[in-house]
Each structure stands twice: as structure tokens, then as C-alpha cells.
């Protein structure tokens, strides 16, 4: 009886999908257009069914527990979504709590796993487009997927095991953790009650959303509620850009999300908050770090808090908010034959206490009560971490480069005594980290900016000049006069910290990105210089072959500028096109025919 019913649903679902295809083409998007996409002439209208959905999510999975098979992906929605067997395996294991430690009720957490190699999306280019204006920390994750989990475990005597255990999992490349958790809070409870039609409705809603374009206030209708949010841009002033609710409204009608990605730093770091500054150094330097927590919710929150504490810098190494012994990288990351890799792992399985015993820095988070907190002031010796029931704290032999900042600790402690709201504590802590990171990064920014060749060295008739190389000692010399002491009162071995940082993946990632931006800027300046030249006059002095060569080069430049979206002034590209056209016109007719062929396929 029951199985017949589910078959019927499956059939109807297929039907519905077929009709839906037509639906999307004929009905315009749900919200008012201004909230939508980049607007000006972008091919938004050309989007096919499921393109909008794909801009937000890869798919939605339901993971259940089968007595014979263990964890299994029961449903993937939309049905055409592709996941490799290996990816499905990862999702299965990562969507359930590792140990049966009392996750009774509803739990939310997040994980991250490697994407199988060689997948190409036809949407790639369209999706990259949104990323251009996003801050580095919020760009689409190239090699990984995030899984956002809503896990429910409740007693159910009618089931063999006596428990109902199921997870609804959103798979996405977007690191919008707060947003996706809010979304799951709306979808998952309804899904567990009303099953597949609910998923169908949710996906259909998402497929009508405006695309995730940074900087716009987006209204996203879902399951009877409108979510309002703003994806930050890289042009926002750090520490601002909070969307605030202007009118009080009913949460059954609309909800405003003040942030899409920020976790509550204070809550996450509360168990170890005497050590926040040391943790900042460890993350900044890309040290191997493991968080041992009692539940995936705590492990994933803490890992995400760690990764985000160096914002606006991007944490460039791998991090796994929730990592299990079934993970495909388990061997790679836990091997004792090599030094621990530069990664941050969040684990809950007690087995890891042994497996990762050799790791240099271990954060243990227990079910801490407020009274216990005061005892955690001392850093613990690693050799004390042997047993499963080791006390919460930070286990490391690391000596921080910077002196301890007692003021922030006092300020937060005072807040705890005065019962200051958690949001205020979080804001204080976030601000503290931001100022610290900025003090650290400004001298680097300043030095790197000085590597840019002078404007006068750019000539239209020579290839763009090269950037000067980054010379560590030269940079160190700049610190005497223009070091972090200008913006931070913290004392300590800043030089040592920089030396260490320059060896880290975080520096590498940061510098690569800067370099790319500066080379693009040089290309753009070069292009602008070219546009200002009198090309007609120039070609008169040259042979036909040279002129053809020039046209080809200019055409290359133009395509490059368009492809890489070079930061050129308004009208530059149009001007270049006019130049090209007029040069071609000055050539004999047979050549004109060849050169006028459109460059793009």
C-alpha cells in the first residue's frame, strides 16, 4: 500500500517537471525586476529552467538510515542533478553525526568536501560573473562543495530501531552559512512532515529567485515567507554592510537576514576565549589545527569561526567544518609519515584523539558551563591530551609572536558579568579581529602597491611593464617606519610573525590575487594609452603586413579585456573597437573581408 503511494508520487513528480519546463519560459520571475541580477542587458531572460536554482544550489539531498545499508542518499532533487558515487558517499557519512552522542531532536551543521575532478558546468561562466564583485571570502568555492545539514532524530516506536533519523542536506558552492541554515530552518521541518511535494515546491521557489548578485537587496520567496538579504561586495567598507530591518514585521510574512555568512564568533570562541589572539595567529599562519567537539554543530561552527577570524583575508588552505574517519582525505590528512598538513579540521569522533595525537595544535571544546570558563586560562601541554575525557582547552606548545592583549579579554569578561547580549559581544570580538588583521595587512598592501611600475613607464608601443618582484628583506625594511605599530598598540615580535606568514599558503593566496589584480590594472592602463594614440597616422608610416599585425594584436587585446573584465575606463573598449574598424577600412578590400570576420565563434 505504502509503496504504491510513493510510486504514484514519483510519477506525478516527473509529470510536474515536464510542465514546469514550459512554465518557466512563459512566466516572468517572481520579484520585481530591480532586485534581479545585473540588469543592464545581461542575458537574464535567456536562463533555462533550473539555471536560477543552480546559481544557488547544486542539489538537495535526503539522507536516511537503512538497517541493512546504513546511511543512504534516498532522494536527490532536482532528479537530474549529478553527483559521483564518491561524492554521494561523502554526503552520506557527513550528513549524520559521527557517534550516537545524544543529538536528539533537531541539529544543524555544515560540512565541506572535495568535488570530484573533471566536472565541467556549462553554467560556469555565467556563475563566475556574480563572483566578480563578491569579497574573496564569499566567492564560489572552486574545488569543494559545502553541505548544509538539518538532521532530525526523534523516538519513533513504529520503526525497527525505535528512532526516526534523517537529514535534509543542501549542497552548494556558496559559503553563505547563515543564509543556508536559515533556509533549512524554513524548509526542513515542513519537509519531514509533508515529504516530497514540499521539496518540489521549495525547489520551484528557488528556481524563480533572482540570481545571487552581490550588492543588491534580494527578496527570496520560499515556503510562504520572503527572505530578504544582501550579499556583500568587495567594495563594501569592512565591518559595515549590515542589512537592518527598517520596519518590524511578522516573521511568518518576511524575514530580514542581517548577515548571510557570519557566525557568532563570541559564542563559538567562548569555551577558549582566553586564547583568541593565539588562535588568530595560528589561523593566519595556516598551522595544522584540529577542533575536537562533542557534536558536529559545535565542530562546524568553531571551524567556520576560526576561518573567518582573519577576514578580510581569505583562509587559503583546506578546512573541514566536520570531518569523519570515512572522509576520502582521511588517510592523506592523518598520516604520520609527513608533517601535519596546513588544514583546519573539526571532528567529533573520540577516535581522533588518538589518530591526531601528533598534531601540533588541538582545540578541545566540551559541554562547558560558564563557571568552568575561568579555569581555562592556561594553555595546556600536548602530552596531557591522551585520553578521551581530557578537559576542554587549547593544547599546544606554540609561543605566540605578539604579546597578549589583556584589554579585549577584560572587555569581554566584563560583558559576561554584565550579561551583555551575545550579539554585542560578537560585534566587539569581530571588530577586534578585523582591526588586528587590518593592522597586519596594511603594511603588506602598502609595500605591494609600491611594486607597481610608474604610470609614465607605460607606453602604447611597448608591452606593458612588469611588476617589480616582492623582495622579503625590502618589505621588512619598510616595517621600521610604516609597520603595524601605526595602527595597533600591540607589542611583540611582529617581524617574526611576518616572516612566518610569508611562508604560509595564506600569503601565497593573497599575493597571487593581488598580483593578478595589478597585472590587470597594468593591462588596462596600457589599453587606455593605446586608445589615446593616433593610430591612423601611425599606420601610414608602416607596411601593410605591419598594419595587419597591429589589427590582430588590437583584436586580441579587446577580447582579453572583455574576457577578463579588465578595469578600464568607461568607453575605452568602444573606442578601441572604433580604432580597429577604421584601420581595417583603410586596408585593401580583400583584406577587409578577412579581418572583419567576427573574432568570436
Amino acid at each position, binding site marked *: 500500500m505504502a509503496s504504491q503511494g510513493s510510486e504514484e508520487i514519483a510519477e506525478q513528480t516527473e509529470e510536474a517537471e515536464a510542465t514546469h519546463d514550459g512554465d518557466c519560459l512563459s*512566466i516572468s520571475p517572481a520579484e520585481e525586476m530591480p532586485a534581479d541580477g545585473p540588469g543592464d542587458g545581461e542575458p537574464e531572460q535567456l536562463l533555462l529552467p533550473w539555471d536560477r536554482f543552480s546559481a544557488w544550489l547544486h542539489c538537495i539531498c535526503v539522507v536516511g538510515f537503512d538497517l541493512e545499508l546504513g546511511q543512504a542518499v534516498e532522494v536527490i532533487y532536482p532528479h537530474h542533478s549529478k553527483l559521483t558515487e564518491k561524492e554521494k558517499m561523502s554526503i552520506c557519512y557527513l550528513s549524520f553525526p559521527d557517534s550516537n552522542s545524544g543529538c536528539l531532536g533537531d541539529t544543524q551543521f555544515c560540512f565541506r568536501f572535495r568535488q570530484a575532478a573533471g566536472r565541467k558546468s556549462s553554467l560556469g561562466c555565467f556563475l563566475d560573473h556574480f563572483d566578480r564583485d563578491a569579497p574573496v571570502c564569499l566567492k564560489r568555492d572552486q574545488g569543494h562543495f559545502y553541505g548544509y545539514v538539518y538532521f532530525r532524530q526523534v523516538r519513533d516506536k513504529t520503526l525497527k530501531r525505535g528512532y526516526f533519523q534523517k537529514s535534509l542536506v543542501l549542497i552548494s558552492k556558496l559559503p553563505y552559512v547563515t543564509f543556508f541554515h536559515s533556509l533549512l530552518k524554513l524548509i526542513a521541518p515542513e519537509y519531514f512532515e509533508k515529504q516530497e511535494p514540499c521539496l518540489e515546491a521549495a525547489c520551484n521557489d528557488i528556481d524563480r529567485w533572482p540570481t545571487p548578485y552581490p550588492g543588491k537587496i534580494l527578496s527570496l520567496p520560499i515556503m510562504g515567507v520572503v527572505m530578504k538579504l544582501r550579499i556583500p561586495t568587495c567594495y563594501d567598507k569592512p565591518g559595515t554592510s549590515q542589512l537592518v530591518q527598517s520596519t518590524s514585521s511578522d516573521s*511568518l510574512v518576511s524575514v530580514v537576514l542581517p548577515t548571510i555568512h557570519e557566525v557568532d564568533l563570541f559564542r563559538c570562541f567562548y569555551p577558549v576565549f582566553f586564547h583568541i589572539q593565539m588562535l588568530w595567529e595560528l589561523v593566519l599562519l595556516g598551522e595544522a589545527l584540529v577542533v575536537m567537539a562533542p557534536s558536529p554543530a559545535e565542530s562546524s561552527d568553531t571551524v567556520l569561526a576560526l576561518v573567518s577570524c582573519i577576514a578580510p583575508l581569505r583562509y587559503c588552505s583546506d578546512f573541514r567544518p566536520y570531518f569523519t574517519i570515512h572522509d576520502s582525505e582521511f588517510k592523506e590528512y592523518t598520516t604520520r609519515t609527513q608533517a601535519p598538513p596546513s588544514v583546519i579540521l573539526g571532528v567529533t569522533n573520540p577516535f581522533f584523539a588518538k589518530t591526531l595525537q601528533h598534531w601540533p595544535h588541538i582545540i578541545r571544546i566540551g559541554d562547558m558551563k560558564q563557571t568552568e570558563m575561568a579555569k581555562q586560562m592556561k594553555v595546556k601541554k600536548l602530552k596531557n591530551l591522551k585520553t578521551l575525557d581530557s578537559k576542554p582547552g587549547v593544547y599546544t606548545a606554540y609561543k605566540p609572536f605578539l604579546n597578549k592583549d589583556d584589554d579585549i579579554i577584560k572587555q569581554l569578561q566584563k560583558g559576561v558579568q554584565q550579561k551583555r547580549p551575545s550579539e554585542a559581544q560578537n560585534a566587539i570580538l569581530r571588530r577586534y579581529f578585523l582591526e588586528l588583521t587590518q593592522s597586519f595587512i596594511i603594511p603588506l598592501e602598502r609595500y605591494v602597491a609600491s611594486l607597481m611600475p610608474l604610470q609614465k613607464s607605460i607606453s602604447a608601443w611597448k608591452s606593458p611593464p612588469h611588476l617589480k618582484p616582492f623582495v622579503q628583506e625590502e618589505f621588512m625594511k619598510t616595517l621600521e617606519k610604516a609597520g603595524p605599530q601605526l595602527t595597533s598598540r600591540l607589542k611583540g615580535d611582529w617581524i617574526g610573525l611576518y616572516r612566518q606568514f610569508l611562508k604560509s599558503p595564506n600569503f601565497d593566496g593573497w599575493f597571487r590575487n593581488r598580483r593578478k589584480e595589478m597585472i590587470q590594472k597594468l593591462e588596462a592602463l596600457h589599453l587606455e594609452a593605446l586608445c589615446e594614440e593616433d593610430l591612423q597616422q601611425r599606420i601610414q608610416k608602416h607596411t601593410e603586413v605591419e598594419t595587419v599585425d597591429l589589427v590582430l594584436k588590437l583584436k586580441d587585446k579587446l577580447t582579453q579585456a572583455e574576457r577578463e573584465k579588465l578595469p578600464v575606463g568607461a568607453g575605452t573598449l568602444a573606442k578601441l573597437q572604433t580604432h580597429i574598424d577604421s584601420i581595417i577600412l583603410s586596408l585593401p578590400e580583400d583584406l577587409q573581408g578577412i579581418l572583419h570576420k567576427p573574432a568570436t565563434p
Partner: protein
Amino acid sequence: MSLRELKVCLLGDTGVGKSSIVCRFVEDNFDPNINPTIGASFMTKTVQYQNEHHKFLIWDTAGQERFRALAPMYYRGSAAAIIVYDITKEESFLTLKNWVKELHQHGPPNIVVAIAGNKCDLTDSREVPEKDAKDYADSIHAIFVETSAKNAININEIFTEISQKIPLLVTSDSGLKGLKLRRDQSDLTRERACC
């Protein structure tokens, strides 16, 4: 002028013309071959009513039976529900009565109910007499109109009548600019009286 968001849901049997009514109201067009709705579709339209802008957040629900269980998500928090039947289908009027019952039992306490007898252009195949529907609507204190999404009859009128029936904002659940200003002023005068 203050802006108020009003959640409105459309309920009723499949094929009675819920999406067509919304489409006519929001975009002022009509597509005779509109596809069945999946889950619900969402549109907005802002209209001026006296000193307020009413932004209707319209949840147009699917009439198909398999989506029936999802309805509470859409009428939850709604300021108004438009229940639609097809004047050429007696059965759709019976479904409407069930919706009224459900709203009465599980809907928000002060929800404004509007009944729309759609397809009133098809008088030749009428199965539900206007008077019967009108009497029923009166008995439950609901707004009643016969509409035609196809010929644009009474579509804007339903929404206007809904605006009229929405209770004015009371200062206590404030937060809205227009009202806040007034309250601030009264605070001011009180202060002055004190001095």
C-alpha cells in the same frame, strides 16, 4: 507615507483560475494556456490605499491535491485569503466551503476572507447561482465578487476591498515610520507640558 506588507494567499480547486487572477492583477495580462502551479508561485504588487502603501505579497497556491498539505505555510501569517471557485463548476464551490472551514479552524484569527467566483464571462455554463454564493459569503462575513480574469472584471476590486477591510495599524505594534513620527510628536508635546 508608510509601506505595509500584506501577505495574501489564493486558495481553491485546481483550474478555477487562481494564477490567472494574480496574473491579471499584477501584470494585467491573460494567458489561456497557463500551466498548473507547482507548490505556490509568488508575486508582489504595491497599491496606494488612503495614507498607506499596501504591498501585497501574493502567494498563489497550487490547487492540485498533492500540494494540499502545504497550504498552511501560505495562509499562516496572511492578512487576507482569496478563495476562488469556478462559477461553471458546482464542485469547486464545495471545495471553497472546505477552505473556509479550514481557515476558520487553523488560519490566523483576523484573516480577511474574500470569495471570488471566477470565469463570470462564461454565463452559459453557469452552475453556481450568484445569489447562493453571495448569501453564503454574507453568512461568513466575507467579501464577495464574481470575477473574470480573462475579461479583467472585478480583479482590482477584490484587492481594493481587501485593503478596505484590513484593520488600520494600531500604534502598539509600531516600528513603521509614519506612525512613529506621530508618536514622537505626542511625546514632544507631553514633554513641553511638563516643563
